[in-house]
C-alpha cells in the first residue's frame, strides 16, 4: 500500500500552482547492510516507467554507471528514460587529461563533467526533461541517486535550492532522491525532509547497538535477517497538513523487491504488554456489560425514581422488578436540597465528573498536600 501511494503520487504530479511532489528515500548502513535502498530506488523507477501513463524519467546517476541502470530496466523503457551521467567523470579528471574518443554511448546518456557548477547541472537536467517532453511525454520525473554525492561537491543551501527549483519548474511533474542518513548531520537530513512531501526510510528489522563496532560474531543471525528484510516507514504529508504514517516490511527475494504489510504497532504492543499469567485477567463482552449495570453504593440514578439501597446482592434492575422493595431514607440524592425533613444522617456522594468510570484509577487523595 505504501509503495502504491508513493508511485501514484509521483505519477500524478502536482496540481496547477503547486510544487511537484518530492520523495526523500533514506537509508543508513545498519538498515540494511546490502544496498537495499538502491534496490528500492530502482524498483520505483521501474514502477513509474511501467504505469503506461506517459511518465518519463530523468535519472541523475552518481552511484552506479548509467549502463548499470539501463541493464536493470526492460529495453521497452529505454525510450522513456534519459540519464545524466555524473558517475563516469564528474570532475573532468579523464577528459582534461585524455580527450574522450567519439562517443559510443547510447543516445539517452548525457555525460556531465563539471559537477561543481550547479547552474550547469540544473540546466542539463531541464534540457533532458524538455527533450522527453518534446517526444510526447506529459509527465517527467527526476530521480537522483544520490544527493549524498551532490553534497560532496556543493554546499547544502545550493543543493536545496536546486531541488526546490526542480520542484517549481513546469516541466518537472515529480522528484525523488536517495540520501544516506549516516553520512550527514541530522540537520542536513531534516533540511531535505522539510522540502519533501513524502519521506520513506529503511530501518533494520533487528536493531543492533552499533553497526560499526558491533560484536558481529554474536549477532550474525540478526545481521543476516537484516539483509533479507527491512522496515519501510513512510510519512506522507497531505495538502491539508495531515500526516499519514505507514509501516510495511520490505523483502528482497530473487532479485526483486516486495512489500508486505505488518500488524499494527499498537496491537502488537498491547499483546506484548499483557502479562502471561495462569488466570484470566481480561473481561469478556458480557462481563463488561454486567459491570456497567452494577449500581454503585451512594450513586443516584438521576431518573427521578426512588432511591434504593444497593445491598450488593442484586442489581438495580432486579430490585425494581421486585414489588417488595421499599424506599428507605438515609441515602439522599445528589441534588443539594435543603430538605431538612430527614432526621437520619445523610451521605452525599458527588462524583468528580460525570465521565468518571466506576473503576477509575484516579486516587481521590491526589490533591492532598501531605
Amino acid at each position, binding site marked *: 500500500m505504501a509503495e502504491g501511494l508513493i508511485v501514484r503520487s509521483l505519477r500524478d504530479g502536482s496540481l496547477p500552482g503547486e510544487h511537484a511532489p518530492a520523495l526523500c528515500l533514506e537509508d543508513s548502513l545498519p538498515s540494511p547492510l546490502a544496498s537495499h535502498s538502491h534496490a528500492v530506488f530502482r524498483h520505483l523507477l521501474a514502477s513509474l516507467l511501467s504505469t503506461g501513463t506517459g511518465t518519463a524519467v530523468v535519472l541523475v546517476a552518481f552511484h552506479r554507471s548509467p549502463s548499470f541502470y539501463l541493464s*536493470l530496466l526492460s529495453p521497452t523503457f529505454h525510450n522513456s528514460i534519459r540519464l545524466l551521467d555524473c558517475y563516469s567523470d564528474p570532475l573532468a*579528471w*579523464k577528459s582534461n587529461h585524455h580527450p574522450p574518443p567519439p562517443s559510443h554511448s547510447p543516445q539517452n546518456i548525457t555525460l556531465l563533467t563539471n559537477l561543481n557548477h550547479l547552474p550547469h547541472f540544473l540546466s542539463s537536467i531541464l534540457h533532458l526533461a524538455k527533450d522527453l517532453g518534446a517526444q510526447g511525454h506529459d509527465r517527467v520525473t527526476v530521480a537522483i541517486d544520490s544527493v*549524498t554525492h551532490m553534497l560532496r561537491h556543493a554546499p547544502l543551501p545550493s543543493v536545496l535550492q536546486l531541488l526546490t527549483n526542480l520542484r517549481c519548474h513546469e516541466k518537472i511533474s515529480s522528484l525523488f532522491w536517495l540520501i544516506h542518513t549516516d553520512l550527514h548531520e541530522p540537520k542536513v537530513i531534516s533540511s531535505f525532509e522539510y522540502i519533501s512531501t513524502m519521506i520513506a526510510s529503511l530501518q533494520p528489522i533487528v536493531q543492533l547497538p552499533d553497526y560499526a563496532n558491533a560484536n558481529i560474531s554474536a549477532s550474525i543471525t540478526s545481521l543476516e535477517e537484516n539483509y533479507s528484510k527491512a522496515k519501510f516507514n513512510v510519512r506522507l504529508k497531505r495538502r491539508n497538513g495531515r500526516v499519514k504514517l505507514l509501516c510495511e516490511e520490505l523483502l528482497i527475494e530473487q*532479485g526483486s523487491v516486495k512489500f508486505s504489510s505488518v500488524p499494527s504497532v499498537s496491537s502488537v504492543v498491547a499483546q506484548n504488554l499483557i502479562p502471561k499469567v495462569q488466570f484470566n485477567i481480561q473481561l469478556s463482552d458480557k462481563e463488561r456489560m454486567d459491570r456497567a449495570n452494577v449500581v454503585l453504593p451512594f450513586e443516584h440514578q438521576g431518573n427521578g425514581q426512588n432511591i434504593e439501597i444497593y445491598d450488593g446482592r442484586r442489581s438495580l434492575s432486579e430490585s425494581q422488578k421486585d414489588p417488595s422493595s421499599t424506599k428507605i431514607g438515609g441515602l439522599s440524592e445528589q441534588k443539594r436540597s435543603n430538605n431538612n425533613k430527614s432526621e437520619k444522617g445523610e451521605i452525599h456522594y458527588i462524583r468528580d465528573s460525570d465521565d468518571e468510570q466506576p473503576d477509575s484509577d484516579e486516587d481521590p487523595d491526589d490533591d492532598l498536600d501531605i
Partner: protein
Amino acid sequence: MAELCDLLAEAMGHSLPVGKVVLIGDCVETSGAFVLHLLLKRCLSLDSSFVVFVALSHPFSHYDRILRKMGCNLSAQKKNGNLHFLELLDFSARSKENSVDDGFCKLYNEIRKSVEAARSKDTKASCVYIMIDDISLLEIAADGSENDVLNFLHYCSTLTSETDCSLIILNHEDVYSSEDAPRLLAHLQHLSDIEIRAAPLNTGLAADVHGQLTVINKGLLNDDRRSGRRIWNFQFKVKENSVEFFYPGSQH
C-alpha cells in the same frame, strides 16, 4: 586450486572478485595486512592477471620478502609485466604546482593508463586488480581532505565498471574511533561490495588463534548466488608462509 577452498575464498564466492570494491578493515590489535598479502598472491596466481599496487605504507622490498615466503616472486611478476608497483612512501597530493585535486587526478590517470594498457590487444589481461595500502595514508597525502580522498576512490571505483577490474583497499578503522561521526569510514562502507574486517578475539589474546575475520559479501540484486548467506565470521592464525582459517573450536 586448493587455496581457493578455504573459508575466505568461500566467503568471497569461491573466486576472486570481478568488478567489485573490497574493503579490508583492521585495527591496532589485529592487523589486516595479511589479507592484502594473501589476496595479492592469489591475484598474481591467476592466468593473465594484472595488479596495480599503490604502496603508501611500505617499500617494495617489504612486500617482496613477505610474498616470497608465501611462494610468490614479486620481482619476477614485476619483471614480467604482471605487476605495476607504485611506491609512494612520500606521496603528497599537494605540491608547488598542483593542488590536492590535481595531485590525485594525476595519480588516478597513471593508474587508469596502466589498467587500460593491460587490457590492450597485445597484453590482454583477463583479471585486473587495483590494490591500495592504505587509505589513512591517502588522507595524510591529501592534507586531511576527506573529500579529495573520496573523489579519488570514486574515480578508481569507476574503473571497476568500465574495465571490470576490482579495487581492493586497506583501511585502519580505529583511526576514526575517536571521531563523533567517522564519515570517511562510513563512505567506504557504502562504497564497498565486500567488507573484510580483522578484529581481536572477544576473549582476548591467544597463542594459537590470532584473531577473527568477518566477511560481509553484500552482492547485488542481479547477483546469481546459490546461497543467500552474506556474512561469515571465523578465526585465523597467521603462519610463516600461509594463513589458516577455521571456525571456533575446529582448529586442527
